[in-house]
């Protein structure tokens, strides 16, 4: 209980004094996570719309696989990305291992199936609502996908936020591919892990509170900007 109280006090102190290390780590956490989220959304959202609108061979298999991959163990993803990016691996020449780029790659692999699956669920429902109308209007496949993505944007925001939540709290994969290098690849979660292993629970907790605050702030801001939960809106 004492550690918890100390953690809260230290979190407030670190935040109020704008501790340089904390700011650096927090900004890196945000940069890595938001970059991964951006790349992931570019892949996941159109893929979800295509899976909702089009009927093709192996579609069900792809959906089942994506659903299964939602529970992908991050440590295994980290290990695979590590092997691929290590000097002897096929992409070793790119020199990405132990950089924030590698962390972004690992996070993209982890959150893309999650965002795709949640987005697909919403868009599938929207498509069943719109199907007859858009077919009767003689719309092209591209127009249908665009319409679904636009009209389903609030549900897609929720899917993206689920991806953000998973990515910002992720530690296993980014620890392996990032290496938790001070001033280079250290982010909030890996810093918490390090401080816990050193026995500095107060600092670990302080970082934990900052992480939670950051995640909540991003969620609240997105909901506020998206104008969700207001009367007459989706």
């Amino acid at each position: 209980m004492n550690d918890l109280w100390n953690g809260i006090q230290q979190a407030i102190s670190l935040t109020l004094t704008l501790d340089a290390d904390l700011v650096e780590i927090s900004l890196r956490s945000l940069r890595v996570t938001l970059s991964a989220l951006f790349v992931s959304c570019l892949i996941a959202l159109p893929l979800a719309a295509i899976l909702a609108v089009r009927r093709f061979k192996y579609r069900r298999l792809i959906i089942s696989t994506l659903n299964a991959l939602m529970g992908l163990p991050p440590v295994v993803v980290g290990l695979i990305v590590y092997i691929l990016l290590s000097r002897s691996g096929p992409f070793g020449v790119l020199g990405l291992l132990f950089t924030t780029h590698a962390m972004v790659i690992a996070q993209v692999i982890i959150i893309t199936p999650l965002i795709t699956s949640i987005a697909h669920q919403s868009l599938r429902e929207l498509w069943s609502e719109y199907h007859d109308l858009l077919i009767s209007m003689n719309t092209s496949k591209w127009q249908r996908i665009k319409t679904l993505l636009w009209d389903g944007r609030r549900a897609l925001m929720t899917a993206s936020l689920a991806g953000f939540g998973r990515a910002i709290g992720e530690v296993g994969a980014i620890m392996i591919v990032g290496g938790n290098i001070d001033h280079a690849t250290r982010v909030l979660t890996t810093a918490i892990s390090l401080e816990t292993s050193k026995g500095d629970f107060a600092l670990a907790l302080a970082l934990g509170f900052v992480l939670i605050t950051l995640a909540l702030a991003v969620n609240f801001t997105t909901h506020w900007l998206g104008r969700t939960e207001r009367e007459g809106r989706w």
Partner: protein
Amino acid sequence: MFPMTACDLSVKVRQKHIIGPINLTINEGGITVLMGPNGAGKTTLIKALHGIIRLANGQVTFATPAKTAQEQQSFVFQSPIMLRRSVLENLAYPLMINGQDKQSAMERARTWATKIGLSAHMDRPAPFLSGGEKQKIALARALITSPKLLFLDEPTASLDGAATVEIEALLSEAQSTGTTIIMSTHNIGQARRMANRVLFMKDGQIDAHSAANAFFDTPPTEAAQKFIAGDIVV
């Protein structure tokens, strides 16, 4: 575009025979009303004629190429399907998917919103309006592209008298400006008011097809006679 000809048209759903074989010719102008008891196949027939149901057999042909004919048709469903957008955006949608620029599409949508008495609700989300208002939007959205052929599936089935009068006025105006209308209805009074021709369906077949006056004065078949008399047709 006319005549529209259905040749040996039949529809099956999961191997179950629903309608057909139907042979039918619709010439330009006027209102053709499809009548018949529940389950006679009215909705299936107009959806098949419009091309949003796959035919098991036969074909629907027009005097113009199929693509051109498709572009000159609109469809209004029994339960209006509203895009999750404002009234104006719903009205402008068919214009914009046909390549019209947003500004002129919105301008035309504004004119139509005023015409259907929804100028005060232009910016409200369409799905939150009443059933009658939604059906007026659906009809205006179908007419905004000035289609040569308009299909309606029981457009006033769940509407009150006032909304029905407004819908019928819009249909009469559309017909007088050159839109050929094919609509299904259960409402014998509406058929008497609106129809130039009547197609009476029973058990997935066309039981009678004649001019409206002749149909109501001397119903050509026993089933039609019973239907008009208000008896149960089985």
